[in-house]
């Protein structure tokens, strides 16, 4: 069934169709509609889940974790300050191997208070052991939630589905809502091998000395390394059932491109518009949209970017005292790759400053005019 829904509701539908069982959540702009609809669904029994009206995001994630340990499929959603308040518990979910799924609306971090989009909230959680899926359309949001459960539960690793504030969260788009029975066929119930139950009593997460900790974390990374192939495979399976394919990245006219944008989120779609405009002007541009950031798709990035003449990485985020985070990671991935292209790093759109097709055209003009980057960071659109 096709419906015009907002990005936030795409998250709610995703959780509903995935039959999330425990949903502890706390409101924050611009996420509120996610939980409002879910609480409505629980009240009206459209969804057989326990909605827990926690008193903070910290508790939301704590409850997700322990409900997951008890064997339930769990969902929550948040944004910016709320995600940040969960930080300790994000480490916990991954270290404890609890495949929670969290919807995060990308919003700039305070202070000053902002409710507008940038990626610093979620990217500053890149080291917490969660998978991260960045979405560019409401359809992708909904589909990603379902896939995140599938991949996450197979690997026992939690996953975030991420969308831009307003530009996606509050934007209505046409979305195909899959049928429940088809989703059920794709995503079986969550049945973890080990769970918290008096039938098979274990202590979870006790004091772990230097003799054992290293190995447990090694396992986590090794399972993370299985994720890229699994995500691709899951994408294929999903395509067979639903006709839509999502992979680690989304290539738009990359094949013959002289200049490749590396982009993400809603800007990752706007970039396509710029690619077409540039091609109209005779410039062979392309766009590599990064959907999955954790695990980082090393091979895919190397394969695609390895062939480009130039790459322009567009970051709506920054690691202060370093570079844009995609820029940093793309360069790192390409290091040592033979004939890897010059890679330029651009920062734009922080705190909700709009990113338009013109932004990309300005970036293209800059990158095309130089042989290689001569500044650590190129700022686009800042009033200087």
């Amino acid at each position: 069934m096709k419906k015009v829904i907002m990005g936030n509701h795409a998250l709610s539908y995703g959780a509903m169709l995935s039959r999330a069982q425990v949903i502890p959540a706390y409101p924050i702009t611009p996420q509120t509609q996610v939980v409002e609809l879910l609480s409505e669904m629980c009240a009206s029994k459209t969804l057989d889940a326990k909605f827990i009206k926690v008193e903070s995001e910290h508790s939301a994630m704590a409850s997700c974790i322990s409900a997951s340990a008890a064997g339930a499929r769990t969902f929550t959603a948040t944004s910016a300050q709320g995600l940040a308040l969960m930080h300790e518990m994000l480490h916990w979910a991954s270290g404890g191997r609890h495949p929670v799924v969290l919807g995060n609306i990308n919003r700039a971090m305070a202070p000053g208070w902002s409710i507008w989009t940038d990626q610093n909230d979620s990217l500053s959680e890149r080291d917490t052991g969660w998978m991260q899926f960045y979405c560019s359309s409401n359809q992708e949001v909904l589909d990603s939630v379902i896939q995140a459960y599938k991949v996450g539960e197979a690997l026992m690793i939690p996953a975030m589905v991420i969308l831009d504030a307003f530009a996606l969260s509050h934007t209505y788009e046409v979305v195909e809502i899959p049928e429940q029975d088809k989703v059920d066929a794709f995503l079986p119930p969550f049945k973890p091998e080990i769970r918290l139950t008096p039938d098979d009593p274990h202590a979870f997460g006790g004091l772990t000395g230097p003799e054992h900790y290293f190995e447990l974390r090694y396992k986590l990374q090794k399972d993370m390394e299985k994720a890229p192939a699994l995500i691709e495979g899951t994408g294929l399976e999903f395509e067979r059932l639903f006709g839509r394919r999502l992979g680690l990245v989304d290539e738009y006219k990359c094949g013959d491109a002289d200049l490749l944008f590396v982009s993400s989120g809603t800007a990752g779609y706007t970039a396509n518009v710029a690619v077409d405009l540039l091609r109209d002007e005779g410039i062979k541009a392309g766009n590599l949209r990064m959907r999955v950031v954790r695990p980082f798709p090393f091979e895919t990035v190397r394969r695609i970017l390895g062939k480009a003449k130039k790459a322009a990485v567009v970051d709506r985020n920054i690691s202060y005292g370093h570079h844009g985070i995609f820029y940093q990671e793309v360069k790192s991935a390409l290091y040592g790759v033979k004939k890897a292209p010059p890679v330029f790093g651009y920062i734009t759109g922080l705190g909700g400053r709009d990113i338009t097709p013109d932004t990309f055209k300005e970036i293209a003009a800059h990158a095309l005019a130089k042989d290689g980057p001569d500044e650590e960071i190129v700022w686009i659109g800042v009033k200087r």
Partner: protein
Amino acid sequence: MKEKKAKRIVYRSEREMPLMVISVGSQTHNLTGAWRNIRPEIDLEKCLKCGICWKFCPEPAIEIVDERPVVDYDYCKGCGICAEECPAKCIVMAEERK
């Protein structure tokens, strides 16, 4: 009840470990008798069989065997509570051999 006096578990490889950080063995491998430098000795002649020593042992290292209190020296840490609480004062804390 988990195995009494369980063995220490030795993992030689990450593959032997469970995926999650979970317990699979009992702490009874840990003979806390080594912590003790004074030891309770029960004079069963005077014992009233009131069970108070058993009740208040924090380990618990006092078992009821054949209707009488028996200290398990593998675990008794020598805290002295049993001696202190025994209404018959029939438990004495003796020094461990130095």
